[in-house]
């Protein structure tokens, strides 16, 4: 949705916040804006725009624009192009910020200051938020704040964002009446300055912006200039000519300016920062000695994953029982208080089992997110990418693709959106195409149900083992398909890896808890809306048309619309071991995977198969038989079904996101096609190979 920027009254100050990744920018953004955030898109491009509102020290309204975290203003992706445009005031839909908060990591000051140096060029009033001073202090790094302010020429606010220290001072700094543009204290090599000034003259923008833009243009490489050439051929000509002249003087424009900035930064830091020499290993270093160790690194990685899955199975049991009992109680209550009617059936056989069957998995999903949150917040994810990069590049992907893929364990959608950081188009596409193979949280209910049907009395270890295997199947499938795509359709050079390994941080439990609550809210909202609506529709499809009098309940459902659909696809799925009722479940799942559980609940409820009110869906399924008396849910069918769900594309929301991110229908349709084929073949193979080796 394109959101209009908030109405800009005379007094609404527009603030932007920028900084390196991992520097705590998001923490500050959230702390300032709280829940008053809106995520949308910049009009016309698939670049996310995150804006929020907050109030200054005197209550004056301000807007805060979150610029994507980056190490430099150099443009290498659409995200960065938009960020630069916003900072230069080139976007009509987003006003040029009045103030910029540049967030800097005190413990890696030199590198963090590079972006700041570039921002100072832009001549926008800037406030440096020196974050993580606690970490710096612990390492013995002492920063002379007044000196730093003087050297940079802008106010510097020390902060520890995770503990909310410095927020007040930051607000004060941002709210100051008079904000001066930063003084140009960074020495720019003279030939470059001269060329930049002449180019600035050609640009049709305000003079304060022109020089900054000229500098940015001079340091653009050929490909980016080529992209610009369409709209501004004359300017691009001048830039190319200027670059040639500089090169003739043995000055390489692309690198000279970068080096000049770092030289300045280095000098500033040497005057301003006092480090007690190369002290010994930090705690973070020591941890890395184990966690990225040749042997122990893998042990800890697998150990962490196993721990996660075991917890998902054990800790969730009790809350799941509560929810299960609650749903049953509700069903019974409605049954006894309403006369028999279609409406009652809609509620008791449709809505309640449908929504209840999905909501029951909330505890498991929350535990999953808790662990992923800890892994991410603590900085471990970067190590995971570091260790996995060799594997990733062997299939032709980027180590950084691993992180979107890892997030896809929660939900493929943010994982797919996270691929925006992958610069190479083909790599990005390959990652997007395989991301849904990383078992997302919506599959969890399906796995859990099938595992329960399979081995209801087995230990949690056994159950986690099977679940872990399903996840592994997904991972292997994802990597294999990525390799295949990179070898065939999406050939390209393996991209460069430049991954920061931030120091380990104690994860903010408060932050994780907040996100968990948020996610629970989203999950329940979805259950109460989409799943509820789907349940109603499925119930209707399974109830109507009404059968002729005297029909058994099984016959009734068989001739209903849903039954007919199930029968229709039955020939296609019988080779996989499924019957038409499962077919109904599969059809419903196309919209959302977890609906499978609710659907089967509805189907068996309507059938009256749920004998007594305390028998669960699991037990029902275990005793479900074909007309010929054989068990429907044999172990082999259970596994085959799980494999199907591992590999199939069953999420309309994901399809929509892929369409949006790739700007065409070609890729999402291709994705649906290949994944369905893969799922069918996989389930087929499992089912028949299993039979063949004597499994039932």
């Amino acid at each position: 949705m394109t959101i209009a920027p908030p109405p800009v009254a005379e007094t609404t100050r527009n603030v932007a916040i920028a900084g390196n990744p991992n520097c705590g920018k998001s923490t500050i953004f959230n702390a300032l804006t709280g829940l008053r955030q809106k995520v949308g898109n910049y009009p016309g491009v698939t670049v996310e725009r995150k804006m929020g509102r907050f109030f200054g020290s005197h209550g004056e309204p301000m807007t805060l624009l979150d610029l994507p975290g980056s190490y430099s203003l150099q443009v290498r992706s659409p995200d960065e192009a938009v960020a630069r445009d916003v900072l230069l005031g080139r976007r009509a839909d987003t006003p040029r910020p009045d103030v910029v908060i540049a967030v800097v990591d005190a413990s890696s000051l030199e590198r963090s200051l590079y972006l700041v140096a570039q921002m100072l060029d832009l001549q926008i009033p800037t406030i440096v938020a020196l974050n993580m001073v606690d970490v710096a202090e612990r390492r013995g790094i002492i920063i002379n704040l007044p000196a730093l302010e003087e050297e940079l020429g802008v106010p510097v606010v020390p902060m520890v964002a995770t503990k909310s220290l410095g927020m007040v001072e930051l607000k004060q700094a941002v709210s100051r009446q008079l904000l001066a543009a930063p003084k140009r204290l960074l020495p720019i090599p003279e030939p470059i300055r001269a060329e930049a000034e002449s180019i600035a003259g050609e640009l049709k923008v305000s003079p304060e912006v022109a020089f900054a833009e000229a500098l940015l243009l001079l340091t653009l490489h050929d490909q980016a200039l080529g992209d610009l050439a369409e709209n501004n051929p004359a300017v691009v000509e001048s830039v190319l000519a200027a670059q040639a002249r500089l090169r003739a003087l043995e000055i390489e424009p692309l690198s000279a300016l970068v080096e000049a900035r770092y030289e300045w930064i280095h000098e500033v830091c040497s005057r301003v920062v006092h480090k007690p020499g190369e002290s010994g290993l930090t705690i973070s270093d020591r941890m890395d000695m184990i966690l990225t160790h040749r042997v122990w690194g893998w042990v800890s990685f697998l150990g962490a994953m196993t721990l996660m899955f075991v917890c998902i199975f054990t800790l969730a049991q009790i809350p799941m029982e509560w929810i299960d009992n609650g749903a049953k109680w509700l069903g019974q209550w409605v049954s006894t208080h309403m006369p028999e009617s279609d409406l009652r059936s809609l509620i008791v056989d449709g809505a309640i089992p449908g929504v209840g069957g999905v909501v029951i998995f909330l505890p498991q999903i929350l535990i999953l997110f808790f662990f992923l949150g800890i892994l991410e917040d603590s900085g471990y994810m970067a190590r995971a990418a570091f260790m996995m990069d060799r594997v990733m590049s062997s299939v032709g992907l980027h180590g950084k693709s691993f992180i979107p893929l890892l997030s896809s364990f929660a939900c493929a959608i943010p994982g797919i959106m996270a691929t925006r950081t992958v610069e190479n188009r083909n790599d990005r596409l390959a990652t997007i195409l395989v991301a849904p193979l990383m078992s997302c949280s919506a599959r969890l209910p399906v796995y859990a149900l099938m595992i329960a049907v399979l081995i209801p009395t087995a230990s949690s270890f056994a159950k986690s083992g099977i679940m872990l295997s399903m996840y592994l199947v997904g991972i292997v499938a994802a990597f294999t398909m990525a390799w295949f795509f990179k070898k065939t359709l999406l050939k390209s050079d393996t991209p460069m890896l430049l991954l920061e390994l931030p120091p380990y941080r104690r994860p903010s439990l408060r932050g994780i808890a907040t996100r968990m609550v948020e996610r629970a809210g989203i999950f329940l909202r979805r259950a109460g809306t989409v799943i509820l609506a789907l349940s109603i529709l499925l119930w209707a499809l399974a109830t109507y048309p009404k059968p002729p009098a005297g029909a058994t309940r099984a016959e009734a459902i068989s001739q209903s619309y849903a039954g007919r659909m199930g029968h229709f696809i039955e020939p296609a799925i019988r080779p996989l071991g499924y019957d038409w009722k499962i077919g109904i479940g599969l059809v419903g799942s196309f919209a959302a995977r977890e609906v499978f559980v609710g659907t089967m609940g509805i189907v068996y409820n309507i059938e009256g198969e749920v004998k007594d009110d305390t028998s669960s869906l699991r037990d029902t399924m275990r005793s479900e038989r074909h007309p010929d008396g054989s068990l429907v849910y044999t172990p082999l069918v259970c596994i085959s079904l799980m494999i199907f769900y591992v590999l199939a594309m069953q999420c309309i929301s994901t399809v929509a996101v892929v369409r949006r991110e790739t700007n065409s229908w070609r890729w999402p349709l291709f994705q649906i096609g290949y994944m369905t084929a893969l799922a069918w073949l996989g389930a087929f193979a499992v089912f028949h190979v299993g039979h063949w080796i004597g499994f039932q």
Partner: protein
Amino acid sequence: MPTHLLSALKAGQKGKIAGFDLPMEHRTRLLEMGLTKGVVVELVRFAPLGDPIEVKVRGYHLSLRKREASGIQVTL
């Protein structure tokens, strides 16, 4: 002074960057991350599978592939 390739260093060794042998675009990115001429780089470790490598530069840790690292010349 004899130059070595960054990728050829042993874990724990430090060097000063002397030059680059990389395509311009890659070089610029490394420069932006702080790997400029004259800066001290420490090769902290190799990843468990041998690639990528972890280096310490300008006070922070960065991982890059051996392929790129072999385009960075250092003096010990």
